[in-house]
């Protein structure tokens, strides 16, 4: 019997090689994050600016970054593209990562934090870039790219909401992939796959990042819009805003009232973060004046936009949280020229309403709504 065991043990090196191949190639990104996103995160961690962001899965990129970054970012930011221009220049002396996502929804709102916390990389300061639609529970407000399962996992496991559509993950389950022959086959196939036709993220020289014709992802997670979008004539930007204002406002229609579920989860989230000693900052990215005027003109349809702001102000008071910005540009002294389109503020204009984080108490108190 011993002889047989010894002979069988001679197959262990083969098994070890197969496990190693599965682990290193990791075609599903179980251990290292998804393929191109992992590659992109590696560039970012090396301090590179990268092209090809629009072809990447921003959520997977954040996950890969969270897995692979050595130490936690001291400041973490979430939110949609409306908050993604907040970069390291807003965090003097501290590390910052902008975990926002294009088209971010309520799921992203929670999971942007969770993908870091579950890696044991919780920030000191969490800047919540809060879009009003995260309190709108209509299903059309959910982005198909967001991670519903992870959201349910977070609110079930971390915030303690019961009866959620979530089954607790076995943290060791992913390691079964190492002895799964199908995963090994996938790894080998992926390794030998002709990837030349796929457009992979590429580093962009630092002196060219503002001249690109596509969005550039910065090493701190923030983005730089393409040169045309940033520099186009203000009239064109305003025309864009006006067009958007004359259409149903993004994710704000059928928004009768703030979702009771989402507000409960939001409050629990705040308490959860504060219990962990994490400082919170609310940032409300303003809308273009044309948009807010359209919302005011059709107050019956869009009253919840203003209700959200009032609600957030209450929450800020209740939990002693600094709040910056306002959905209403007039409330923070912004004009058309501060906007690149109906939804997106210029980076310099953000500086008018959001102070350098950590120094919030000084110079911009007046913009605190």
């Amino acid at each position, binding site marked *: *019997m011993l002889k*047989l065991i010894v002979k069988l043990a001679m197959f262990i090196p083969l098994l070890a090689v197969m496990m190693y191949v599965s682990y290193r190639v990791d075609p599903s990104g179980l251990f290292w994050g998804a393929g191109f996103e992992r590659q992109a995160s590696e560039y970012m961690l090396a301090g590179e600016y990268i092209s090809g962001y629009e072809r990447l899965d921003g959520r997977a990129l954040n996950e890969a970054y969270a897995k692979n970054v050595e130490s936690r970012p001291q400041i973490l930011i979430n939110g949609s593209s409306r908050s993604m221009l907040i970069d390291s220049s807003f965090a003097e002396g501290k590390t910052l990562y902008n975990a926002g996502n294009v088209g971010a929804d309520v799921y992203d709102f929670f999971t942007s934090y969770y993908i870091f916390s579950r890696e044991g990389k919780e920030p000191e300061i969490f800047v919540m870039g809060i879009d009003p639609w995260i309190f709108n529970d209509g299903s059309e407000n959910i982005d198909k790219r967001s991670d519903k399962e992870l959201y349910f996992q977070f609110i079930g496991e971390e915030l303690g909401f019961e009866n959620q559509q979530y089954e607790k993950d076995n943290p060791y389950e992913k390691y079964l992939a190492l002895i799964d022959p199908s995963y*090994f*086959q996938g790894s080998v196939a992926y390794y030998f796959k002709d990837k030349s036709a796929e457009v992979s993220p590429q580093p962009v020289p630092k002196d060219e990042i503002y001249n690109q014709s596509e969005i550039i992802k910065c090493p701190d997670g923030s983005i730089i819009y393409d040169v045309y979008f940033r520099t186009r004539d203000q009239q064109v930007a305003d025309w864009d805003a006006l067009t958007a204002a004359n259409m149903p406002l993004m994710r704000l229609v059928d928004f009768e009232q703030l979702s009771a579920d989402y507000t409960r989860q939001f409050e629990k989230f705040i308490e959860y973060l504060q219990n962990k000693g994490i400082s919170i900052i609310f940032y409300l990215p303003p809308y273009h004046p044309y948009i807010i005027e359209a919302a005011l003109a059709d107050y019956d349809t869009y009253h919840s936009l203003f209700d959200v702001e009032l609600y957030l102000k209450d929450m800020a008071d209740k939990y002693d949280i600094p709040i910056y910005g306002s959905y209403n540009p007039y409330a923070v002294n912004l004009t058309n020229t501060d906007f690149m389109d109906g939804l997106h503020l210029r980076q310099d204009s953000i500086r008018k309403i959001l102070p350098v984080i950590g120094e919030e108490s000084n110079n911009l108190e007046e913009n605190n709504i």
Partner: protein
Amino acid sequence: MLFNSVSFLIFFPVVVLGYFVIPAKVKNLWLLIASYYFYMSWQPVYALLILFSTISTFVCGLLIDSARSRKRKKLYLAVNIIINIAILFYFKYFNFFVETLLELFPSLSIAKNNNMLAVVGISFYTFQSLGYCIDVYNGKTEKETNFLDYALFVSFFPQLVAGPIERSTNFLPQLKKTYKFDYDRVTDGLVMMAWGFFKKLAVADTAALLVNAVYNDVTNYTGVQLVLATVLFAFQIYCDFSGYSDIAIGAANVLGFKLMRNFYHPYFAQNVVDFWRRWHISLSGWFMDYIYIPLGGSRKGNVRTYVNIMITFLISGLWHGAAYTFVVWGALNGLYNVCERLLFGKKQRQIRQRQKNGLPVKQPPLYRRIFNALVTFAFIDFSWIFFRANSMTDAVYIVRNLFSDIGSLFAPGYITSMLTPMGFFDKNGWAVILCIVIMMAVEMWEGKDTLVQRINKCPWPVRWAFYYSVIILIALFGYFGQSQFIYFQF
């Protein structure tokens, strides 16, 4: 429980370990419990059927043995055959029978039983236990008096659901012996099992992906696609079934039991008669001994011989499945056999006579043997169309369209344009072909030995290279979606 499942990976070592550490007197009981557990993992209630078959044939064996007159023995045997065939008929053929009746007489008020589940392996254990009764009746084997041993003979898990269909003369005496752990025997068994897994996972299951794509939607395919799917099916069914047999034989060998060889390089057969001596040997032998010979075999003139052949093959077709396609498949193979006997019977008999007398038989040259094997393969593969097709309509469509694109075959890019829609490049088509080539090369290398005998003659580096290669091939090209073995349904 499938051999290619995680459950079996746990079940088998536990059974083997338990078998070697427990006292000799309870070893067979242990295997019996394991065998019933194995079988009940499909549908627990159907264990009652196998239990009933076991009890009835066990009692029948005792009654036949104790009966004084030949007439009474015959009566006991006949009653037992009728009971067991009736059960087999009900669970396997009832719905087919009702469908046929309704086609012939639409006004009949008879209904199918749609709630009936397929009873895994019912044809195998029914034939095995009936074979025992017939052997007792013919005096070929002693009656078995130990019920536990007999129950294990019927339900022995490695061969329970898809054979080989063991003979009582071979297997019952083995149950009287005690087997201890033997390194060489265990490793031989494991090698057989590994080779069986290679055939099943790397050839049969991956080929099935392509075959199923075509055969489940035949009208969307034509010409070269149908030909490729049919050729691949020939290897799918061979590797599926012989893979199962190899695993069964290997698993039994690990425990100490010798099961009969079930396949002997069938696609190297030189003619159809030769093919049937190499394919599913345990079943062919069963039909030969219990159907063909009792019908008169070849002893009652040429015409009667041909009729007996046709009857045997038609029953064989029906044994495989309750559908007209299987009947046609059986009829075609019967017809091949008859035609071959008509055309080459005299010459084949002369060769067999020379072999019997120990006289040298001149081997045809290699090119001739290759040609013969290819022609035989073509005929056999043609019959597989009916075996695999989901209906007669599909089978007829395939036959009609097999060569519909022969004129375009050599047009540049045509083959590629035909292979792409059937998923040849997405579903590891090249890997299947590579694995088939490797398998056939290994079978050529085996020669007249078994794989284990051939490997054991090699120096250790070759042996280990073979072991490693098999595992790497399975890991690289195997399909791990846990597909059933085709023959479970029979």
